[in-house]
């Protein structure tokens, strides 16, 4: 049981991975994506996960967020152990406790901005908390565009809708998968600003995978992965400090596009 806290920085844990391993294939073709990773994501903290291509940073996020299965170890979101959950329970967990922000926005083109924002609650069949919703919308600055469809919005605006969607249901934890990957630097800075504000002002927990040192510098803490292991971490990072650590990682080159290798062609 985690105790609810009053202080901004606490030791309460929103998500925890213990001895988490993810192994693809068998025998000679075996690939170890995650090698006994143990990491805590503290409540009310903004954590960035960094690492070179193939380091396992996306896999780590997917496993912790209940999107992917793992080979051994354990993952807890709040006080729920993920390893024992069936697909249906995992889905419900994602629906009720987790918010997602994707690189490619992933909005439904048939729904308006507002409908997209409230979609997770519609799915759950819950009424959104009006006041909270308004404050989230106001924060991301979408008040005038709620009736627009995604195709009528710019990339930055679409990602702001996605941020609002992730925050609107007051999840225990928000996961971002390269949330600024498809944005220009100004829009990217805006989105990262919202995420940081949500942590500072609303006490939200955010975990974000990124390969951009500048983006990582918005976080409170940066966790570095290489070859499926956590190799380093930095609190209160600056872009330069992040870049330095990246350079020192085995095979590390900060601008390598991540996750591309996993993407399906077609």
């Amino acid at each position, binding site marked *: 049981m985690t105790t609810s806290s009053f202080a901004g920085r606490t030791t309460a844990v929103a998500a925890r991975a213990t001895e988490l391993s993810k192994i693809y294939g068998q025998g000679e073709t075996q690939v170890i994506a995650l090698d006994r990773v143990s990491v805590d994501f503290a409540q009310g903290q903004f954590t960035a996960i960094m690492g070179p291509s193939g380091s396992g940073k996306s896999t780590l996020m997917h496993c912790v967020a209940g999107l992917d299965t793992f080979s051994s170890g354990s993952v807890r979101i709040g006080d729920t152990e993920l390893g024992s959950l069936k697909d249906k329970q995992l889905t419900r967990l994602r629906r009720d406790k987790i918010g997602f922000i994707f690189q490619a926005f992933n909005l439904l083109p048939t729904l308006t901005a507002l409908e997209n924002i409230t979609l997770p609650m519609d799915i759950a069949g819950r009424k959104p908390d009006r006041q909270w919703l308004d404050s989230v919308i106001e924060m991301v600055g979408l008040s005038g565009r709620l009736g627009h469809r995604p195709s009528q919005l710019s990339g930055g605006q679409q990602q702001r809708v996605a941020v609002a969607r992730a925050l609107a249901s007051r999840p225990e934890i928000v996961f971002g998968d390269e949330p600024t990957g498809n944005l220009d630097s100004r829009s990217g800075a805006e989105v990262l600003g919202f995420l940081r504000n949500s942590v500072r002002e609303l006490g939200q927990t955010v975990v974000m995978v990124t390969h951009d040192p500048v983006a990582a510098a918005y976080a409170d803490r940066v966790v570095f992965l290489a070859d499926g292991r956590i190799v380093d971490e930095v609190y209160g990072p600056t872009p330069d400090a992040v870049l330095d650590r990246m350079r020192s990682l085995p095979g590390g080159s900060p601008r390598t596009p991540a*996750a591309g290798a996993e993407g*399906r062609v077609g």
Partner: protein
Amino acid sequence: MFRTALRTVLAHKARLLMTVLAVMLGVAFVSGTLVFTNTVSGALENSSARGFDHVDVAVQPVYQEGKGDRVGTLPKLTDATLDTALHVPGAASAIGVVEGFTAIADKHGELIGGGFRSKGGNYWGDDDPRYPLVAGTAPHGKGQVLIDSKTAQRAGYRVGDTVRISVDGPVLTPTISGIFTTDDGNVTAGGSLALFDTATAQQLFGKPGSYDEIDVKAKPGTGQSVLKQQLDTALPKGLTQATTADQLASDQARAIADSMSSLKNGLLVFAGIALFVGTFIIANTFTMLVAQRTKELALLRAIGASRRQVTRSVLIEAFVVGAVAAVVGLVAGIGIGAGMHSLLGSFGSTVPDGPLVVTPGTVVAAFAVGILVTMLAAWLPARRAAKIPPVAAMSSVHATATTKSLVLRNTLGALLAAAGAGLVLVATTMSGDSGQAPMGLGAVLLITGVFVLTPLLSRPVIAAAAPVLRAFGVAGKLARLNAVRNPRRTAATASALMIGLTLITGMTVVANSMQLAVEKLAASAIRADYVVSMANGNDLSPDVERKLKATEGVTAVSPMRNAISRIDGATEFLTGVDGAAFGELTDLPVADGTFTVGGTTVVVDGDTAEDHHWTAGSRFTVSYEDGRKQELTVAGVYRANEMIRGILMDKDTLAPHQTDPADMQIMVKTADGPGDAVKARLVKAAGSNPAILIQDRQDISDGIARSVTLVLNMLYGLLAMAVIVAVLGVVNTLAMSVVERAREIGMLRAIGVDRAGVKRMVRLESLVISLFGGVLGIVLGVFFGWAAGSLAGDRLETYELVLPWGRMAVFLLLAGVVGVLAALWPARRAARLNMLRAITSE
């Protein structure tokens, strides 16, 4: 390039299967139709084919039109005619042909050959070259008959057996004097043939001293046309006609082709519909294929393939698919043709037996349809494929479908639909025959118009379903939005069902209304308990009436006896009835005067009265077929119906003028109403003759219902094809949508929609599209049913529109089932989608 295309075809087996299936169904339908019609027309040709081996020139009488007071007649071919024919220089021999109806009962008293193919004829002399005897001797007199070897074999008859036969009612029990073989097509097709000596045949068939035809055989060295000229010169001009056997054969072939053409065209319409719908599926499939392969094709372009090469690779793929589907479709089509033939056969012997006919034309049509339609349908997607820029190979962004404006399409559709609806409405105000052509044209225009308008219609109609879908939460809402997302595709998918259901509903509405009208008519106008008639529609001997009248429990009997006459220089049919009993047996509404038939007092129907300007009390002069005249008085004017119309007069007044009276029907009323006992007595009175039908009102209604149901079931069977094609179309569209929306579905799964929710979403979309097509189809069908009915109703007084609500509900349900079934596989696929791949792609 060809190898690349071929590899692609084989690389995607599921997709290949679906495309092949779509094309195959179209081909199967077309070739099945052709095989069926060719087989039936082949069998018909054989069954009405008479060998022309024993005739070089046939002499037939020429019908003499009625003139002035003289009734139209058919001149008689007598022994004198035969003699004249035999004595022309080129004639070697001549045979007088007598034909008629002869029912033969098997040993259990059942009719052999089903009535319509129970034929009789004459055996010429002691050695008729037409019918070689295999056993026994030629028949002599009324006590002897010959039967064909097939019938003998079937019923187990042997020479010397007594056989029950009937020509026009009374049962005869002659001895089989011999058994013959014949190549007569009617017998080959399952009929029976009984032969009497010539005099007996003439007497039995009501043609004393005359022949139906005289077949003349030429002397060796004399040509058919020479013999024909000689006969033309020798025989009286204008009364007879000599025709060469060659001419007869080709006339016969043409007549058979004509009689088959309407059935053939009807079936081809269905084939065309299946193909039309199939074309959309094929086009959809290839669109999907190109969309899925954007990257692959762009890569080809990037490494140097020209646009034309890309187009060609898609077309080659289409060719391969088309060719494979054509082969499979042809085989399936032959199966369908054979199946339809045997199915029809099992519903009664309305279709003659015969071997399956697969003409080269059928094969050519199958391949032309399969390959051409597939390539044509693939052509547009192929062009689109060629337009994929090479850079698409590098970029992650899918080439999105351009949403062209629907303005032009909607305008065109509205014009077509309006013109079509207008034409149909105008046609309903016309009289029966003249309205048919504009109505058909209007129907085609309207269907085409609605088809073109379907994308426009999809939004409001599907929006109307929103309240129901709301019950399903997000899945329902997303399903509705997805269904209207690509209106063209939704329209193309729904159209398949729409067209099928339009036809089914329209036909059901007309058939049901018609059936009810006829039943009402049978019930309303007739008070008789039983109507007696011949199974094959032939006339009954007056003898039957006399016997029925004498039966215990019978209170009133009247025949309906046809006679021809001339009145005011026009031909009129007279119906002879028992004047005293007729009023008791029928209940015809009288518009003017009284319903009195007796002596020289007659009643006439409204139409006839109008033609001759008669009212109750009018007097007119009739010229009978024997040339004598009589003055008759109109007692009343009644409203005619399908069964009873024209001039009704007393049969006793008519009798002296008829040489060979025969009854179409006999109406019987009994003291206690219809019942098993009285029916058994009637059957016995009619000689327990299987060829005589004794029907009560229920039997008549059932008979009508049966024939309507048979026709409807056949149509349903044919339209089932359209429904199967529609299912494939929906499957295709959904599969395509699932592929295109992989990313969205992945996102939905990530943010909390479980597998069941995704499945529900796809299924509801499918249901919405199918029901949309179903509703459109049923609405159009009812409209066409109403319109066609108002044309047909002109001729049928009791006709009124009956909406078969039950059936319509079933059809709508069927559309729903189509939707659910079609969604099974795509929904599973969507639910099993790899969520991580979908959301993290690129």
